């Protein structure tokens, strides 16, 4: 798949990856060995029949390929773009052992985009059961659960607190990785199944808990939107952002187009992003597009970056400077940020995760001159609603406790996605949501039989 050159793409928010042509797609899909026991499918949390859709692409039958994918995945244009395929389907493709795995993600994206251009087919919806299901949150988990339950004939309402649906897909992941029209059109398909979407509804406030529990089933998909801060000096100076805030201002509120859009964001010439996960890469690349020189500060080494390899590569190409083995201890300035003070770290014995633990080197502190600091050090479930539901079991990290099927400690209440797992991935959220929705559907069926 070809990419736009870095010098061009840092000037706009257009998509970086250009996608495959039909010829390229057919050629790539034809490399598949059609394994008897396809390991790739085990690597996909929603178990798409990968060899089958690859065979269909190879035969030029893109319509059938789309049907195959959509049996298991309602959001293929999204997943094809943002799944960490190297640790999922592609990571276990047998071809990867000796050579290069099949580019399953790119092919999935190709098929989804092709289908959109040639007319989308909606899956069938079962006759109405008259049962009402509430889905809280419209991120990948909520959308997947809603689609699944609507197809089973239930009357589904999604409650979303923001003014747009999509969760992190809309406010978090920047459009140069995931164009917002792609997100909008896949949400559209979920709504076309008859799902009712109520925006601007914060459950727990707009919808009280007793009203919520009045539904025949409830699926919580409220995500892990609560940003963590480092708790260091200077953190509330003007110009310190959580990655969530920075990304929301730009992706959801379009601060990059201020003053055509009303929401501002501090336009800095030098920015430090703290962290090295996908969220940090996104924040850094957004800051770069807003014209800044960007430093990415991380306390371990580059080989320890938790972000996807491709995103690290992209960030590098775009001129993001990695400041590794450095730990921020203080943000300088007042009232606005003028710098960030860090200490050098040395790598010591491996910790439980097998990675060497970083330890500060005495007297090694140094400062970076920056006027904005963006913290991307992780996030947890938003406690607001969870603490209002009496009897809902909450884990140590603030997550909703669920079993393998997404059942919580309360009957008729299910949870899936980041709210149950902590910050994870789009496709894991979808996989878990599908399970939870199917479990909820079975429980409702039983209810119907008994009544």
């Amino acid at each position, binding site marked *: 798949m070809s990419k736009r050159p870095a010098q061009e793409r840092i000037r706009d928010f257009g998509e970086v990856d250009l996608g495959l042509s039909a010829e390229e797609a057919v050629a790539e899909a034809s490399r598949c060995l059609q394994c008897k026991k396809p390991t790739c499918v085990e690597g996909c949390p929603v178990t798409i029949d990968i060899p089958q859709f690859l065979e269909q692409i190879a035969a030029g039958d893109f319509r059938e390929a789309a049907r195959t994918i959509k049996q298991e995945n309602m959001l293929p244009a999204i997943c094809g773009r943002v799944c960490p395929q190297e640790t999922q389907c592609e990571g276990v493709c047998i071809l990867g052992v000796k050579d290069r795995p099949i580019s399953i993600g790119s092919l999935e994206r190709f098929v989804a985009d092709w289908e959109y251009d040639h007319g989308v087919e909606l899956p069938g919806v079962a006759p109405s059961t008259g049962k009402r299901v509430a889905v809280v949150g419209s991120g990948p988990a909520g959308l997947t659960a809603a689609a699944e339950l609507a197809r089973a004939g239930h009357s589904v309402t999604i409650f979303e607190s923001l003014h747009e649906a999509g969760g992190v897909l809309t406010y978090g992941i920047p459009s140069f990785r995931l164009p917002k029209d792609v997100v909008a059109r896949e949400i559209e398909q979920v709504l076309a199944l008859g799902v009712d979407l109520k925006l601007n509804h914060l459950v727990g406030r707009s919808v009280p808990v007793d009203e919520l529990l009045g539904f025949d089933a409830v699926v919580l998909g409220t995500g892990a939107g609560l940003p963590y801060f480092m708790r260091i000096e200077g953190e*509330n100076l003007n110009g310190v952002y959580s990655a969530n805030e920075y990304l929301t201002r730009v992706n959801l509120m379009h601060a990059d187009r*201020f003053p*055509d859009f009303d*929401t501002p964001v501090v336009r800095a010439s030098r920015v430090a992003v703290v962290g090295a996960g996908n969220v940090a890469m996104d924040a850094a690349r957004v800051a770069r597009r807003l014209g800044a020189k960007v430093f990415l500060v991380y306390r371990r080494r580059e080989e320890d970056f938790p972000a996807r390899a491709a995103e690290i590569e992209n960030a590098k190409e775009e001129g993001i400077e990695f400041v590794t083995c450095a730990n921020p201890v203080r943000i300088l300035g007042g009232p606005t940020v003028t710098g960030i003070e860090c200490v050098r770290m040395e790598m010591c014995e491996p910790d439980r995760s097998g990675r060497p633990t970083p330890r500060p080197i005495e007297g090694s502190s140094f400062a970076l001159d920056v006027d904005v600091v963006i913290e991307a050090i992780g996030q947890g479930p938003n406690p*607001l609603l969870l603490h209002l539901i009496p009897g809902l079991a909450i884990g140590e990290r603030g997550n909703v406790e669920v079993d393998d099927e997404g059942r919580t400690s309360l009957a008729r209440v299910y949870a899936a996605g980041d709210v149950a797992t902590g910050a994870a991935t789009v496709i894991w959220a979808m996989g878990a949501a599908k399970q939870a929705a199917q479990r909820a559907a079975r429980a409702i069926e039983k209810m119907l039989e008994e009544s």
Partner: protein
Amino acid sequence: MYAITRATEIADKIFEFWITAPHVARHARAGQFVVLRIDEQGERIPLTISAVEDDRIRVVFMAVGKTTTQLSSLRAGDAIRDVAGPLGKPSEIERYGTCMVIGGGVGIACTPIIAQELKEAGNRVVGVIGARNESLLILEDELRAACDELVVCTDDGSRGFHGFPADILKQRLEEDAPEAVWIIGPAIMMKITSGATKPYGVKTFVSLNPIMVDGTGMCGSCRVTVGGETKFACVDGPEFDAHLVDFDELMQRQRIYTAQEKEAMERYHEHTCRCAEGEARHE
């Protein structure tokens, strides 16, 4: 879309809007707010819910910048793209005994609903409102009806007591101290006024107004320091124990976007002037 059913200018640059928003109206309590966005290009701004009637809510706001000025140009029959809420924790309404509810400037708008709920909970409620001059006093009759007693102050003495609500508060603290006090107004007014109750250890609430984006606890834009800890005003507040609040930090953070706010306002004026000229030419 959320329809505006009534739009009135009740004082210089202060507007009272009634907006149909059943999901907010149904559960709104004193102390809570909405976040609204006028149109697709709009910013999300928080406004306190100042009254509720059937499926409508009232907001009272001062036209200070681009968004509030644009909002003030809307009329009954127009509609707002998004209204989210009710947000924030409701006021801590309990049976305290005697309570004082103090409003300064446009902050007066938030006081009647709090006074009403306090009264319903069995408290004796003393209202105090203050403004620069008589013409900026709002909702006086409404608050008087909700209170057992109302004291009106103006900075210039054009009406009522010549002085600040803080002066009245100090007097009462000496004579017959209230058990709980609410102070709502500009940050500087809340800082100074709440300083008066501190030596007396009287429970004092202030409603903080940092810059917000989502209003749901997702971004941290609204973070404030309370008792040495970082809190998110949109979900942990907006009301906090006044004696623990770092007001200086709040005021500093309110000024993050001063330059951009000015630019947005100038552009808006330019634009509306040009439109007005265009209209004039058509006539």
